[in-house]
Structure formats: structure tokens, C-alpha cells
């Protein structure tokens, strides 16, 4: 029972960890970046005129950012809605920009299923999400038109060639999004500014330290702007992460309750069977506390053995499941991914410690009862 519970916890934690980690990386690389800089009004969505949200001097900020070696890329970004037309069909689309030169490293996360990624050498090419392409029957090489308003409210439109069709792990993103080179979008919107500056880091662990080092520089370069981390912006990630955390805790509590009841029953039975033995030991002069300690020690040995077997079993099963490449489609995902279970030391430690503690706790009450047993009555149980 202990071994099964420990193995289950290791597998479940490893599975959800990989899922949440994958979602985090996809969210950061395809949407939020590690850090984003934008005006206060952009974050607070207070201004009705989008033009007021623009950062005109973003190139100065980019130059400052590019000095930091922890930063992999920093690029301006515009995001707007427009009408995407292909043939006779049109649909409202979210357009997000990329800087094809600076943000090359992001391409692998877009997972281009057809065609090729955007290039600064081909400014009039766009990439379309797989869901969106399906809705408008768009293929690579298709001609599409994007119609939108400039920041001054004038209607503007441009024709593009579809260079590729991408598919991230987030279905909602793939169903609505069109990627456009930043310079082209600036031309379409008739602006030289950007709404946001997106920063990608070499390591997610540097997020906080980069933010802290950038904050004072920003206050002098662009005092109206504010910097936010990916975690503050990734709503879906936060919801999934929180859900998994609660779910894991509930599953662990159920498993550990079962372990508690099962061990209490096992130790209780063992004490029943050994009532005569306990009576004899107490008659010979064994102290009550020693009897309790003996049964607690038995519980500890039982727990430790179970934890060791469970840990080895969990590691073995994790490798076994990883080798099977079982496909699974998560809610909100656009394509199946293969089940990958991370073997986490933290999960092993958590399952191991709680397994041993629960086993010892389970043995506590029966052990205490055995020690309080009337010696004469206990002796009447024949050995």
C-alpha cells in the first residue's frame, strides 16, 4: 500500500510537472516572453485611444536591454485586431508581431507544420495559426488581406502571402492568431512606435533579477512605462498550475489517508496477534515507552521499506511510460503530446517523507494502546 501510494505520487507529480513546465515554456516563448514593458495605461487598459499606449522611444530602451547578457532577445511588439480575408471569406483575427531577426529563437516554439517561418527579408509574408488557417481554408502560399484601423482611426489594408502555418500547444492561440513582421505592422498601423517590449531571457531563473535591474533604468528612460513578469501575464498558466497543485494535494491526501488506515489496521492486527508477547515483555520489566517505541520503529521500518520499493517502482514506471510514447490531448491544447513523466527529486522526497511520517503516525495509536494494556489480561492471551 505504501509502495503503491509513493509510486503513484512520484508518477503523478512528474506527469503534471512536465505538463505545467511545457505550458510555461510555450506561454513564455509564443506569447508573453519572460518580461514585458508597456505603458501604465496599456496595463490598466484605461485609455480609450490606443495611440496613448505607444512607446515612441522604444529603440533606446532596446539598446539598453541588449547590453544585458542575461537577455536572449528584446523586441518591440504590436498587437491588434483586424479582419483577415481569404477569397470570399473573412474573419476577425488577432494580429501579433514578431521581429523575425531578433526573435529567431522563438520559431521552434511556433512549430511550423507547413511552410516556413517569417523573415525580415520577406516583409509581406505572414504566418497563420493552424485553427485559423483551417477556418479560412488557408494554405502556404495563399494570398490574404488584413484590414484594420491605424492608430489615427483611418482604415488601412495590406495584402500578404502566407509563408507558413504554425501550431503551438495552445489551441486558443492557434485558432485566432496571425503573425506579422513588426516593421510591416508598423507600416500598416502607420506608426513608428510599439505597444510593448517583449524580453526573452536565457534562463527563466533570471526573470526577477533582470526585472529588478531594469526597473530603475526604465524610470529614467521611459517613466510612464512599467515592467511585468510572464507570471503576472500568463493567466492560463496560473490557472492550470493552481488547478494541478490543488489536484495533486487532494490526490496525495486521499492516498495518504488510505495508507494511514491500512497501516493502522496492519499494526493493530499485529498488536492483537502479539498481545500475549506484549504482556510477557511487560511482565519481564519492559517499560511502556519501550513498547510504544518498538511498534513505532516497526512502523518506521515498514514505512521506509514501502517508500524505497515505491520510489524504485515509481522511477521504473516513469521510464517505462516515457518509452511508450503515449499520445494525449490536454484540454485547450491544439495537438496531442506524448506523455512524459519527469523523475523529480522533490516528488520523491515529498512522497518519501510523508509516507514514513504517515506510517509512524498510523502506528502511534495502536502502539500507545498496546502499551496501556493490562499486563495480566495480556498474559492470558497464549503464546
Amino acid at each position, binding site marked *: 500500500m505504501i509502495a503503491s501510494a509513493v509510486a503513484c505520487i512520484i508518477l503523478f507529480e512528474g506527469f503534471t510537472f512536465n505538463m505545467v513546465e511545457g505550458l510555461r515554456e510555450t506561454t513564455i516563448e509564443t506569447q508573453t516572453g519572460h518580461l514585458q514593458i508597456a505603458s501604465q495605461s496599456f496595463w490598466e487598459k484605461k485609455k480609450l485611444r490606443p495611440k496613448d499606449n505607444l512607446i515612441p522611444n522604444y529603440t533606446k530602451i532596446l539598446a539598453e536591454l541588449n547590453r544585458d547578457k542575461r537577455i536572449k532577445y528584446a523586441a518591440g511588439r504590436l498587437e491588434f485586431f483586424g479582419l483577415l480575408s481569404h477569397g470570399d471569406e473573412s474573419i476577425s483575427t488577432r494580429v501579433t508581431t514578431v521581429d523575425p531577426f531578433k526573435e529567431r529563437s522563438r520559431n521552434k516554439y511556433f512549430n511550423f507544420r507547413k511552410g516556413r517561418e517569417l523573415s525580415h527579408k520577406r516583409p509581406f509574408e505572414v504566418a497563420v495559426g493552424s485553427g485559423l488557417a483551417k477556418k479560412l481554408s488557408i494554405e502556404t502560399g495563399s494570398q490574404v488581406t488584413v484590414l484594420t484601423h491605424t492608430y489615427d482611426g483611418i482604415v488601412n489594408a495590406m495584402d500578404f502571402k502566407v509563408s507558413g502555418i504554425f501550431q503551438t500547444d495552445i489551441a486558443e492561440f492557434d485558432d485566432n492568431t496571425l503573425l506579422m513582421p513588426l516593421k510591416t505592422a508598423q507600416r500598416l498601423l502607420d506608426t513608428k512606435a510599439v505597444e510593448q517590449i517583449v524580453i526573452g531571457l536565457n534562463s527563466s531563473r533570471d526573470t526577477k533579477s533582470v526585472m529588478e535591474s531594469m526597473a530603475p533604468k526604465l524610470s529614467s528612460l521611459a517613466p510612464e512605462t512599467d515592467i511585468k513578469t510572464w507570471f503576472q501575464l500568463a493567466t492560463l498558466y496560473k490557472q492550470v498550475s493552481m488547478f494541478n497543485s490543488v489536484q495533486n494535494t487532494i490526490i496525495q491526501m486521499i492516498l495518504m489517508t488510505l495508507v494511514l488506515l491500512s497501516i493502522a489496521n496492519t499494526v493493530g492486527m499485529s498488536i492483537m496477534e502479539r498481545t500475549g508477547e506484549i504482556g510477557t515483555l511487560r*511482565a*519481564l*520489566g519492559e*517499560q*511502556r515507552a519501550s513498547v510504544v517505541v518498538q511498534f513505532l520503529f516497526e512502523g518506521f521500518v515498514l514505512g521506509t521499506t514501502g517508500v524505497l520499493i515505491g520510489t524504485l517502482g515509481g522511477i521504473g514506471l516513469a521510464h517505462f511510460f516515457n518509452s511508450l510514447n503515449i499520445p494525449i490531448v490536454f484540454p485547450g491544447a491544439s495537438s496531442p503530446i506524448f506523455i512524459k513523466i519527469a523523475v523529480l527529486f522533490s516528488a520523491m522526497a515529498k512522497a518519501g517523507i510523508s509516507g514514513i511520517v504517515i506510517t509512524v503516525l498510523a502506528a502511534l495509536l495502536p502502539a500507545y494502546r498496546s502499551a496501556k494494556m*493490562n*499486563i*495480566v489480561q495480556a*498474559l492470558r492471551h497464549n503464546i
Partner: protein
Amino acid sequence: MIVQLKDRVCENIVQAVDVGRKYSLGLCEHQALLGVNFNLKKNDFAAIAGPSGSGKSTLLNILGCLERPSNGDVLIEGISTQKFNTFELAEFRAHRLGFIFQTFNLIPTLSALENVEYPLLLLKLKAKDRRLQAEEALVKVGLEKFLKSRPNEMSGGQRQRVAIARAIVKKPVLILADEPTANLDQKTAREILDLMQRLNVEDGISVLFSSHDGEVLKRASSVTYLVDGQVWNPKERGNLLVA
């Protein structure tokens, strides 16, 4: 407390002073012992006799500090046990008393040697000393060839010899034996009694045992009869045929 007793020289090993014991059985109360006065002198080989339900085992349990009397006091080597707490009583049993039970009560998972070693473990002796003393005790009871045997590999007589070795190994002042021969055939019972008597004489250990077997009682240097929880005195209460 144990240190105080260790070198104590006292004529009376154990004394029961007006000991009574009441048990609650649901709403009823059963008086198992009533006003029992009893003395056991040093080096005695004494018996408590009486029919079933007369209170022999209860008296032995109280004298062995396995349970407390409802009233009265038990003095061991002149010291009252009334105020001993559970810890002190256990410590007292571990150091000063040896027990032999009717059903042997050996630990089934331990060998004969380990069973005999166990009381010495409670006295916190070194492993080497424990082993030596346990081997000596088993040799004394004639089980030198059965050191490694488990209880289920031995006969009833051999098991009782292991129990005797376990009782004598810590050199107690008193051995309490509750019907030690009741589960044995007559020949083996005689051998066990011979052994107990020999240990009483050679090692100077006082022995108090209970029995209702006339043949066994003949071996005792003194016999105290119990009837309905009271000491039977033939002068005061007339004749009684003990089975």
C-alpha cells in the same frame, strides 16, 4: 529505588499486608482477594494452594507487581510498593523478580538463547555479557544443546526449562511461578520441580509457586491455602479438602 534494594538484607522477601482485590464485572463487583496477609522468607520454596477461582493467580500477580491491590500493601524486601509508579514497578520487576508461567510465554520468534537474553537486555548489559550469562543459565537447566532452537521446535518440558532459565538469568530475589507444571505430564512436571528446587537450594533464590496439585504441593517447604480469596487457617475455619 533499585539501588536501595540491591544490597538490602531482609528476612522477609515479600509480605502482603491486608491485601484485597476487587474486580468490576459490568454492574457487579467480584472480591477476588480479601484481607490477605502473607509472608515469604528468604530462601523459601513456598506454595499457594487452593481450588480454581480461590485467588491464587491474583495473589501471585499482586506479589509480582503485575497488578495493584485494591487495598492493603505489598512489601518487597521491606519496602512498600504502594507508592511505586508504573515505571518504577516495571524497573522493579526487571531487576528483582523472575516469572514462570503456566503457558511458558516464550517469544516465538526468538531462539531459546535470545529468549533468555531478553531480561538482560532490559538491564542494559553488554551483548557479550548477555550471551555468556544466558548460555550459563541454559546450561544450568540442561538445555546446552538447544541454544538456537525456537520454542516451536521444543517439547513442553524444554520450553518450561527455557522459561526457568529466563527467570533465573538475572539472579532475582524471588521467582513467582503460576501453576508451572499444569501443562506438563507427570514425569516432566517432576523434573521441572526438581530443577526449581535445585535452583532454590544452590542459588538461594526464593520461589513462590501456585498449584492445586497435591503431589506438587508436597514439595513446598510451606503452603498457604486460599479459599474464596481469603487465607484458610485450619485452626480458625475447620478442615478443607484441597484437590
